[in-house]
């Protein structure tokens, strides 16, 4: 009873509390979980429910799972991205192979491996009666059939030559060689030590040791000691033979040791010393005297060469310091006339020959010498004639010539060293100078041999300098003429300058080439003969082609071609249309003008300004069949394409090597070789270590639902 009462009370209280809730429901308000929890708070019996509800409150709802198709699609996309990334590693190789000049297949060289015959035999059994019979026979004779086939000796020999052993052997050899080289290097190093002290100590040590041993031996075994003594003696002799007679030498030292016991030795040493002294003294004395003599001689006459040379070194560019006064002035004067750097207007005819190759210079010089000797016999008068005949035209040049002659005479008087020189020869040289300036300049040099050599040296040196000063502004012509006229009045400095220029010119002459030279040496009569021959030839040709005038024919042809290529006017006049027509009646000018259609003039002909050429601008249909009309695909410019066509690849135009290189085929395959697909290992990539199969088997999810169904059915069946 009491219990029931209690329950009733609690229910009453609960209802009292929940009445407002009910009202709220009745009014259509929304209920929240907390509203429901409110009344629960009081009752302790509902604690468990309360806890649960609280937990629910704290958690959020789980989202709906994606449908299966979506999931698969995402899986596929991820897998595809992964795979395509993995495949991109092949890009560089594919590109390389596509662009390769030559691909040789199979890519990887196969090593030919022969299976040993016993392996082949082991997998094979006799089946047919015949085979069995044969095998029975073999077994009866205990012939090795399957396993051995190699006798133990053969096997041993095979083993002996095994790779590992060979490697070991090689390693040992290498070690021995290394050791040897190490010792050699050490010996070399020791030998190289320059320290005298070190060697002295080393030697002393050695000698001391030898002496000790010798003493010992003398006590123990006199006969052997004697032999040893002989040996030492021999060594000493050898040393003596080495021609070292100084006191400090090895021999001397050994003598010094022996001198204690041996009187002869002491004497010999002294003798040696004396001789040595004597020898050395004598040698010194001889050389000194010679030098002194030379010096005296040179000082007596001239400034010694050595001094001259020093001067040259000191101030190279100053030629005044380089030469003896007399010769210097002479040379300048001789060279003066042809110092004009450029051909002067009125002298053009003569100066033409100024730039002729240096190689011919010497030949011509020789010729001149010969001629000179000839002329000596014939006398002066003839020479004069010759000169006058060769240059009769130029009055001004003659003027210069006379001056030169006078000059040369003066020079000859001054020149002491070339006293023997023939006046006439100089004259001839000067006479010729106008035509052959450089020759003439060197003429006197030729005659005086030693001096010439001297000057040549200078020349060379000057030439070297001249290289730097080559770019000097050429003197104006007028000045040049002036200087030519009065060479004596020239001040020192410009003269020097001119000299240098002259040298430069010489250098130029030596280096530059020019067309053929008409030398004076060729007699006129010969020229005349040649002329006659030429004339004859021309005459012959003329006679042979008398009939045809080639040039006129060509011109005519060209005119015709031009006419033919010109666009023609179209005349559409119809006679008798709109007026009377008939014999002797012409359509009126007005009408003709009206119906004449003039074609516009095309672009000017390409051979318009080329008198002896006809350029055909028409397209040749026959050639067009063999010509490419459009630029083919990989080329971007026609010139590029033309270049590829124009470089020949045949062996007619190329060397064998180049030909082979040009004709290498793009793909080379070997007959009878299997070409396998490219492998990651072949191109240096690491192939995946796990096998595809193991990966598949580790994945549990792969069986499709349909297949699972199948399997289930199978199991049910």
């Amino acid at each position, binding site marked *: 009873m009491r219990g029931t009462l209690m329950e009733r009370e609690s229910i009453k209280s609960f209802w009292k509390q929940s009445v407002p809730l009910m009202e709220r429901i009745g009014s259509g308000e929304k209920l929240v979980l907390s509203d429901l929890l409110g009344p629960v708070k009081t009752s302790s019996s509902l604690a468990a429910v309360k806890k649960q509800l609280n937990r629910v409150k704290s958690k959020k709802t789980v989202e709906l799972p994606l449908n299966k198709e979506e999931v*698969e699609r995402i*899986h*596929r*996309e991820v*897998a*595809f991205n*992964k*795979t*395509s990334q993995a*495949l*991109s590693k*092949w890009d560089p190789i*594919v590109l390389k*192979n596509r662009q390769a000049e030559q691909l040789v297949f199979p890519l990887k060289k196969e090593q030919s491996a022969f299976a040993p015959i016993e392996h082949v035999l082991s997998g094979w*059994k006799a*089946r*047919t009666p015949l085979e069995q019979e044969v095998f029975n026979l073999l077994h009866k004779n205990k012939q090795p059939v399957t396993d051995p086939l190699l006798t133990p000796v053969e096997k041993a020999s095979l083993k002996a030559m095994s790779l590992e052993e060979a490697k070991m052997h090689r390693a040992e050899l290498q070690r021995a060689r290394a050791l040897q080289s190490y010792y050699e290097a050490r010996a070399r190093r020791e030998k190289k030590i320059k320290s005298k002290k070190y060697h002295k100590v080393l030697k002393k040590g050695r000698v001391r040791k030898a002496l000790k041993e010798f003493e010992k031996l003398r006590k123990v075994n006199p006969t052997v000691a004697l032999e040893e003594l002989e040996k030492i003696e021999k060594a000493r002799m050898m040393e003596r033979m080495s021609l070292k007679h100084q006191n400090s030498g090895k021999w001397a030292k050994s003598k010094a040791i022996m001198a204690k016991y041996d009187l002869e030795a002491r004497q010999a040493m002294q003798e040696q010393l004396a001789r040595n002294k004597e020898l050395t003294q004598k040698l010194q004395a001889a050389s000194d005297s010679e030098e002194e003599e030379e010096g005296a001689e040179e000082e007596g006459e001239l400034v010694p060469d050595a001094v001259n040379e020093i001067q040259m070194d000191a101030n190279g560019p100053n030629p005044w310091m380089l030469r003896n006064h007399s010769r210097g002035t002479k040379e300048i004067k001789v060279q003066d006339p042809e110092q004009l750097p450029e051909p002067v207007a009125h002298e053009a005819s003569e100066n033409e020959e100024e730039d002729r190759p240096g190689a011919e210079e010497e030949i011509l010089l020789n010729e001149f010498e010969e001629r000179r000797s000839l002329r000596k016999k014939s006398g002066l008068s003839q020479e004069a004639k010759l000169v006058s005949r060769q240059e009769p035209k130029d009055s001004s040049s003659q003027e210069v010539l006379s001056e030169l002659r006078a000059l040369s005479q003066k020079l000859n008087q001054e020149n002491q060293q070339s006293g023997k020189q023939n006046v006439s020869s100089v004259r001839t040289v000067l006479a010729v100078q106008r035509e052959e300036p450089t020759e003439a300049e060197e003429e006197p040099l030729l005659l005086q041999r030693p001096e010439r050599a001297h000057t040549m040296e200078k020349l060379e040196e000057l030439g070297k300098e001249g290289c730097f000063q080559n770019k000097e502004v050429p003197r104006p012509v007028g000045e040049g003429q002036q200087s030519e006229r009065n060479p004596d009045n020239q001040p020192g400095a410009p003269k020097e300058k001119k000299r240098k220029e002259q040298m430069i010119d010489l250098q130029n002459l030596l280096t530059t080439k020019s067309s053929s030279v008409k030398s004076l040496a060729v007699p006129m009569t010969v020229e005349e003969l040649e002329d006659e021959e030429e004339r004859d030839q021309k005459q012959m040709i003329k006679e042979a082609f008398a009939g045809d005038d080639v040039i006129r024919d060509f011109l005519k042809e060209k005119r015709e071609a031009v006419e033919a290529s010109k666009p023609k006017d179209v005349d559409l006049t119809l006679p008798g249309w709109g007026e009377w027509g008939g014999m002797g009646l012409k359509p009126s000018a007005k009408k003709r003008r009206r119906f004449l259609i003039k074609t516009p003039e095309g672009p000017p002909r390409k051979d318009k300004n080329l008198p002896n050429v006809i350029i055909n601008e028409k397209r040749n249909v026959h050639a067009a*069949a*063999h*010509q*490419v*009309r459009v630029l083919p695909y990989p080329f971007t410019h026609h010139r590029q*394409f033309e270049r*590829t*066509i*124009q470089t*020949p*690849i*045949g*062996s*007619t*135009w*190329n*060397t064998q090597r180049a*030909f082979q290189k*040009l*004709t290498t085929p793009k*793909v080379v*395959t*070997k*007959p*009878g*070789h*299997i*070409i*396998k*697909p*490219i492998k990651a290992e072949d191109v240096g990539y690491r192939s995946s270590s796990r*096998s*595809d*199969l193991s*990966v*598949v088997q580790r*994945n549990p*999810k*792969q*069986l*499709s639902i*349909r*297949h699972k169904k199948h399997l289930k059915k199978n199991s049910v069946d």
Partner: protein
Amino acid sequence: MKVKMLSRNPDNYVRETKLDLQRVPRNYDPTLHPFEVPREYVRALNATKLERVFAKPFLGSLDGHRDGVNCLAKHPKSLATVLSGACDGEVRIWNLTKRKCIRTIQAHEGFVRGICTRFCGTSFFTVGDDKTVKQWKMDGPGYGEEEEPLHTILGKTVYTGIDHHWKEAVFATCGQQVDIWDEQRTSPVCSMTWGFDSISSVKFNPIETFLLGSCASDRNIVLYDMRQATPLKKVILDMRTNTICWNPMEAFIFTAANEDYNLYTFDMRALDTPVMVHMDHVSAVLDVDYSPTGKEFVSASFDKSVRIFPVDKSRSREVYHTKRMQHVICVKWTSDSKYIMCGSDEMNIRLWKANASEKLGVLTSREKAAKDYNQKLKEKFQHHPHIKGIACHCHLPKSIYSQIQEQRIMKEARRRKEVNRLKHSKPGSVSVVSEKKKHIVAVVK
């Protein structure tokens, strides 16, 4: 009178021994060898003509099958061995050097749908219409042994194709779905589907060996990843693809033989545009196989011809046909890249040279040099109209020729119509679709 004599030093021209090469003095002065371009042009012309003259590619036929040849397989280790499966369930193994059948097996009842060799060359697999997968030993049965398969797997559905993994003991079959099998088990390790149509062929990638490609009769090509056991991507074309072949030198390139007379070379990573559309066939293309060099491929077509395409050209380099050859069902390029085999409807397997005018056998060095030179000359002058005309000329059977003309007209009409439509519509309303994109319907992720 002085008589001038030629005098030469014998050292300059006499050989020391007769085994020495003859000394040929050469002067490469270009003035002595004028007209190099015209001379080389003539040489190129002659080389091209001779190439056409000597273009005799047919080597022989292997006859023995009593029904159409449905599938071919190469031996991975031996160049001389070829396997073929016929429509009557017969499998034959041929020796190419002798051109003889060395073994005959009645493998299946009904068609032999697919045949493939194991990578080691010791056994081969066949699938047939009798819902079985059979593994056979490559060597014949011993004396007194029965001709029996090593293993036989009974399946629930018909398998239409089979291919073996390039490195491991795994093979893949296709039919209702693509199944991957472990050789040791009788149930597939994993099977992958995408859509509900029958799959006609499946091929393992020879380089990245975990990749597979398949083509189904709902016009799509699907790529699979064996490791992750998922399909990767699907591309839907205008018409059904009969088979695909992976490039053995370029891991991501494959070529699909399509019913719309074209072949499509795809980069696996970008399926929305084929790299190249190869068109020349005038009927459905049934099979395709790459040269092992990866530079060319051969295709077999229902139009009774076999064509060779360079990978980077849209037009074929060569077309092979004979009067007796009917619809070519399968084609293979041998692993030394010298020969092509094709199996056709009229029960024959034919052997062709891959280079029609190539001289077979060992070449002397001079022959080789001449061959290389001629080849280079042909390449150099290939754009010249005369040479191009000769090089491109080939005789075609009347049916193919007339069909080409017909299709040219059709194509021209279509093009004209397109141009007209473009011309007479509001600018921007009609877009021009390139030839490459035209045949791709969709790419499904």
